[in-house]
């Protein structure tokens, strides 16, 4: 059955992929949002409508989020009602839990699906003792913030027909917040395993030349961006701590920070790290590459010997799936958000925010027998192909659409 799907959300990969899937299935999709992800030729079954919602902001003086009062959303709600009256959607799907969801709920759009995409992370975070980073949300406010999020999300969640979450732990949490008639679906982003695979070694060798990385170097690659919760500085500290014991040459490769949006003082952090590296005499062992186009990431994974993912809060990043598809060993923080997945069986888990433990893990991983590693990672790739390929995720999402659009079956 071909459907009319109204989508809304921020214009990132997490929105673009389900949008691609729906369009590829032949559904008619209208996207309302601030950014049109199709900048060239528009697909025939697609229309973009500019829709700007005010967004919650963070007040640094009171250290709290300022939510947009519902009555200030009336113009957006009216616009959305008008769009819905014209389009008559079979399904409304909002990506990210933000004020677009408020508007959809207030406009009475049903069936309404929301994909969390990281916005519910705080519901599964472990309690923290130390502040996130200096000048960030002090921990004294974390529990208040959590309660506030529960209050806001509780109201929103009660009005949804389905919520899509990225990890099994969030499924459990949402079960306590939703009624049994509301659906909770576990559909992470997944990856294209035809594109992300381990057979780019000759291309990876060329990249090593460009990045001045010796052929025989052991490369630790941190593929996440620079962000307040991704702990790049701790990855560096662990590398520095264990550097002398690593097989040489050893290289730590980061994605370069983009200083255009530096709300968290990251540029300063990056500079301090470089100064420290010079003092320690390991500056030559650090490399940065700019944020690459997503399509080029498979070669980046392929040039790495070890991938490091070390946030202290997370949903379920595609990094973990992409690295697995490329058969790279991964060291990752042990988060509740990753429990109940392949991560526990196949990756090296390290307590978050523990430089000592991360350093130890780096050493352990490079000492692992190559035979055991290859066998384990081949098995993991097979698991990813069967369970995390984009086709699997697309099928799950399309099935959900069909079932909600025609609940009687």
């Amino acid at each position, binding site marked *: 059955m071909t459907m009319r799907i109204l989508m809304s959300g921020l214009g990132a990969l997490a929105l673009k992929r389900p949008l691609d899937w729906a369009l590829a299935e032949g559904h008619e999709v209208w996207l309302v949002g601030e950014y049109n992800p199709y900048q060239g030729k528009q697909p025939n079954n697609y229309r973009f409508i500019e829709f700007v919602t005010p967004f919650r902001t963070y007040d640094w003086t009171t250290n709290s989020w300022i939510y947009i009062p519902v009555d200030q959303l009336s113009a957006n709600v009216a616009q959305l009602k008008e769009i819905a009256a014209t389009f008559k959607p079979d399904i409304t799907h909002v990506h990210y839990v933000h004020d677009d969801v408020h508007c959809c709920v207030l406009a009475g759009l049903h069936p309404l699906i929301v994909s969390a995409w990281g916005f519910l992370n705080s519901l599964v975070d472990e309690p923290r003792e130390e502040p996130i980073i200096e000048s960030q949300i002090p921990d004294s406010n974390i529990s208040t913030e959590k309660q506030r999020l529960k209050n806001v999300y509780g109201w929103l969640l009660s009005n949804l027909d389905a919520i899509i979450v990225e990890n099994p732990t969030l499924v459990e949490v949402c079960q306590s917040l939703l009624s049994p008639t509301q659906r909770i679906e576990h559909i992470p982003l997944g990856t294209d395993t035809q594109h992300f695979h381990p057979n780019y070694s000759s*291309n990876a060798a060329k990249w090593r030349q*460009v990045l001045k990385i010796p052929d025989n170097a052991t490369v630790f690659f941190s593929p996440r961006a620079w962000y307040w919760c991704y702990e790049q500085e701790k990855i560096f500290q662990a590398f520095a701590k264990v550097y002398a014991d690593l097989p040489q040459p050893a290289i730590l490769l980061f994605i370069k920070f983009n200083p255009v949006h530096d709300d968290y003082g990251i540029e300063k952090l990056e500079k301090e790290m470089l100064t420290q590296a010079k003092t320690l005499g390991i500056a030559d062992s650090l490399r940065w590459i700019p944020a690459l186009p997503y399509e*080029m990431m498979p070669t980046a994974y392929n040039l790495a010997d070890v991938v490091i993912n070390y946030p202290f809060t997370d949903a379920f990043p595609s990094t973990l799936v992409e690295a697995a598809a490329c058969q790279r060993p991964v060291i990752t923080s042990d988060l509740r958000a990753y429990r109940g997945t392949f991560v526990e069986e196949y990756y090296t888990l390290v307590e978050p925010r523990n430089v000592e433990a991360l350093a130890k893990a780096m050493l352990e991983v490079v000492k692992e027998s190559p035979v055991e590693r290859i066998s384990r990672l081949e098995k993991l790739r097979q698991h990813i192909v069967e369970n995390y390929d984009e086709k699997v995720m697309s099928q799950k999402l399309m099935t959900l659409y069909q079932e909600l659009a025609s609940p009687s079956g």
Partner: protein
Amino acid sequence: MESFDLILIKKIALLDDVLTHPIGKKSMLFKIETEREFNLNETATRMLNILLESTSIEAAYNQLLQEYKIAPEFLQKDLLALIEKLVYCQLIAIKNPVSEEEV
């Protein structure tokens, strides 16, 4: 740029800050210095790969002529246009085949 005949004996090399990635039969190039990406279609990808593998532009031209079986003047025009565009975008350099110096 010089005429086609004059550059035939020269060779092509990627500039030092250019990363490439195959996407099926197409490819993507990324220039680190400018942080810009470039998409090449199937034909341009094949042309560039042959140019990079060949000892001279002439050798690449002859191979492409055999592969595509098109009129020489069309191939000459397309090949020159591709080289010009890639040079303009600072992705490749035209080099002297003996000295390896950029020309």
